[in-house]
């Protein structure tokens, strides 16, 4: 039976900030461009980004420049970052911020009427361009409008379940329209994975429903390498109460604007963990500190710590943190201008992702590109707040241009019929097969395994146990079936492939975490608490060896001679302090 089919030069999977920016760049480079949204356009997880976009414009701190931003990013990433990506990001973020403003984005101003910039953890200077605490929404709306006026064809509520290859090369994708269940295929001379992260593998997460790691799994299945998957950022401050909202993000801007962390004894406990940076230490440090306070019995009534802005002017809080004010008032019945919030760590961001060429986003698989949170390298072992919004603009644009160039150099492509048939059989199996595994239940099991064994603090015993349990799930994942067999807007059907993706991603994280026998950035091992010289020089690469075997290989960090001086200078400065 013939199915709906479309041909593109460049196909972008994902409509968050990186996907939109990539689609704009590809279309402006002349490529016929298609954009796939798993949800409606403009609803992607980027809307949740609150604090701001890190760019060394120097509007507030004139002494700031790209080299300090580069050093901060490298220090935050514990020097495991791809040096070139950190460099490109620091150099290009200011232009991408200006460009966004020229496209109609509206940011808060300085008295000189320039874009204002706020302080954030790990950034030496006030660097984050922002608008209140809804910077991500402003960005996505601006990019969304630019996209729909750039001749990009948009497919809303369309799920991609497989990348289609012709020989060694990616030539398209297959999936279905969620509203009707009708199958759809795309051919693409170049395909960009911009699918964001996979926080839904944890129960306590700030991530949207969509964040199921699809791009990591699809890229992996297509033969791409992934890097740094063991590094999961737990944002220090998520809501802990009521249970229904546990994990919901409390922006770092609360601390950026002067919020203070206290334990149940009223102690400003960050004095013990990072007396120099206090509340604005890097996220890995603050998250571990909060976790430790709670574990040692100094937590708040609902198992977090207190975050307080009640000492600040009430009108200022409501102006600078309006959504936080609403969020706590509405969902927890707490007036943050009068009483402290209770907060705890929540899974927030994947530092790792598809390993790509730093300059154009190409993976090792011809025709396959990746960008944004779906790609890895830029952030190393820990991402600084504000660096993801810059990342998705800088590398979204680069991937879009890279893909357009690759498409331009390519002849026509077509989808091999047997590949499409295999993809059809897979999703048909979830709907009409004889499977007995319920995807809702398996998702819960997966979240429990990851929360118990692969959380903020890890050790060999728990990781080994988690991997064994993941192997059990792996044996059952082929038996998934949606509880209902109707094709139109069927959430269980949707979840089948997502659970499979999340399971693949969970394996990568758990195995990488077991292999890395040290504590660095967001990865903390109770049985290897210090830095290791060897691991300080190596990233872990994950790829598929043959049809099924997941292989992990350490490779040396990608350095650049001309940046050596900057990196050494920062290392010396850290030692001196």
């Amino acid at each position, binding site marked *: 039976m013939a199915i709906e089919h479309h041909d593109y030069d460049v196909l972008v999977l994902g409509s968050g900030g990186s996907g939109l920016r990539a689609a704009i760049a590809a279309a402006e480079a002349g490529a016929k461009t298609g954009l796939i949204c798993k*949800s*409606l*356009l*403009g*609803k*992607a*997880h980027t*809307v*949740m980004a609150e604090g701001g976009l890190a760019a060394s*414009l120097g*509007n507030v701190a004139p002494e700031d420049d790209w080299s300090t931003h580069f050093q901060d990013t490298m220090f935050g990433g514990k020097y495991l970052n791809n040096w070139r990506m950190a460099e490109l990001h620091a150099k290009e973020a200011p232009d991408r911020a*200006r460009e966004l*403003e*020229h*496209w*109609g984005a*509206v*940011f*808060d*101003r300085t008295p*000189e*009427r*320039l874009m204002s910039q706020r302080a954030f953890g790990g950034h030496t200077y006030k660097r984050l361009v922002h*608008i209140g605490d*809804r910077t991500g*929404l402003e960005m996505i*709306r601006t990019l969304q*409008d630019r996209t*729909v*006026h750039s001749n990009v064809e948009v497919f*809303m509520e369309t799920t991609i379940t497989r990348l289609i290859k012709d020989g060694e090369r990616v030539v398209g994708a297959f999936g279905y329209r969620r*509203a009707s269940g009708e199958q759809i295929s795309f051919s693409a001379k170049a395909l960009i994975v911009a699918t964001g992260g996979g926080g839904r593998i944890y129960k306590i997460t*700030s991530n*949207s*429903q*969509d964040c199921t790691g699809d791009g990591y799994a699809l890229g992996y299945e297509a033969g791409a390498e992934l890097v740094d998957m063991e590094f999961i950022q737990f944002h220090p401050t998520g809501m802990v*109460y*009521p*249970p*229904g*909202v546990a994990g919901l*993000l409390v922006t770092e801007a609360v601390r950026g604007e002067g919020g203070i962390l206290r334990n149940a004894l009223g102690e400003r406990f960050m004095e013990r963990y990072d007396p120099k940076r206090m509340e604005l230490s890097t996220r890995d440090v603050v998250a571990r500190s909060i976790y430790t306070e709670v574990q040692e019995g100094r937590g708040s009534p609902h198992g977090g710590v207190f975050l307080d802005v009640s000492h600040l002017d009430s009108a200022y809080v409501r102006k600078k943190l309006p*959504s936080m004010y609403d*969020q706590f008032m*509405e*969902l*927890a019945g*707490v007036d943050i201008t009068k*009483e*402290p919030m209770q907060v705890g760590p929540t899974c927030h961001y994947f530092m790792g992702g598809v390993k790509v060429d730093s300059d154009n986003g190409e993976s090792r698989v011809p025709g396959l590109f990746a960008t944004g949170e779906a790609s890895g390298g830029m952030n190393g072992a820990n991402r600084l707040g504000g660096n993801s919004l810059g990342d998705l603009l800088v590398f979204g644009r680069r991937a879009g241009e890279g893909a357009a160039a690759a498409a331009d150099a390519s002849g026509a492509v077509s989808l091999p019929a047997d590949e499409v048939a295999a993809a059809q059989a897979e999703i048909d199996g979830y709907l009409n097969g004889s499977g007995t595994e319920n995807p*809702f239940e398996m998702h819960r099991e997966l979240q429990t395994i990851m929360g118990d064994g692969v959380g903020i603090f890890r050790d060999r015993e728990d990781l080994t146990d988690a991997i064994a349990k993941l192997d059990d799930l792996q044996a059952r994942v082929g038996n998934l079936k*949606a*509880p*209902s067999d*109707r094709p*139109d*807007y*069927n*959430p*269980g059907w949707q979840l089948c492939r997502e659970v499979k993706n999340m399971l693949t991603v969970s394996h990568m994280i758990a195995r990488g975490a077991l292999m890395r026998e040290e504590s660095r950035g967001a990865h903390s091992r109770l049985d290897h608490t210090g830095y290791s010289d060897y691991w300080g020089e190596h990233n872990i690469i994950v790829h598929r060896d043959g049809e099924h075997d997941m292989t992990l290989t350490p490779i040396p960090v990608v350095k650049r001679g001309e940046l050596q001086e900057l990196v050494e200078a920062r290392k010396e400065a850290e030692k001196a302090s």
Partner: protein
Amino acid sequence: MSVMPMAVGTRRLKIWRGDLTGGGLVDYDLNTEPGMVVLDAVLEIQRSQAPDLAVRWNCKAAKCGSCSAEINGKPRLMCKTRLDHLPPLEPITVEPMKAFPVIRDLVTDVSWNYRVNEQITPFTPRDDLKEGVDLHNGDFLIDQADTDRMSEFRKCIECFMCQDVCHILRDQRMHNRYYGPRFMVRMASLDMHPLDGVDRLDQIADEGGIGLCNITKCCTEVCPEGIHITDNAIIPMKERVVDTHDPLLKVLGRKPNRGRTKPPPRSEDPQL
């Protein structure tokens, strides 16, 4: 610190099930947890009782605007509506938005809104940006006061509940003649940008159909972001239309506002 009482126990939800061919309310009983929102309840019903229950949601943090529905007859975000803030002794009804065609259960086809948005010329910098006045090394120079004014409108999360409750759309079904409150807000955010170079007045008045709004303020009441849609977006634009949008002058060729140029012609009126 104050601790709000959080009622728990069994609640009954009456959820609309059906599609374009028809449907009705179906009862579900559920054990609730403290602080549960309507979306939690609907997802738990989906997980444990009705696996094919269609519901659109994503961020569950009142930021993406996906989970709009009519709860006890009033448009609300399911993720932001706590069960214990609804009358405790009555069942909770959850129905899809009515201004748009239903796809299935709680999911409606909101694609008309996206077609409307495509008709609106995006922000385009003015031609006469003066070096040193409006620009500084390529940076725009904008007052915080202007930012604050636009920012109210740019808070919009596109939940489309203002569209749902607008009489012109919901009852009169004049989707081909009025863009609706959401896009009046969008027009206002563009129109009030000090460096925007597009004269949007004709579109606001003609295709946009601002004259059809009869200022009942229903849209303002349901906005989850608290945008003063009627007072701050629609009424000021209505006044400007009355002041400057003379149909006779238009026939003769009205000059655009200073520093602004007329947008390119648009395609046809978006149909529902």
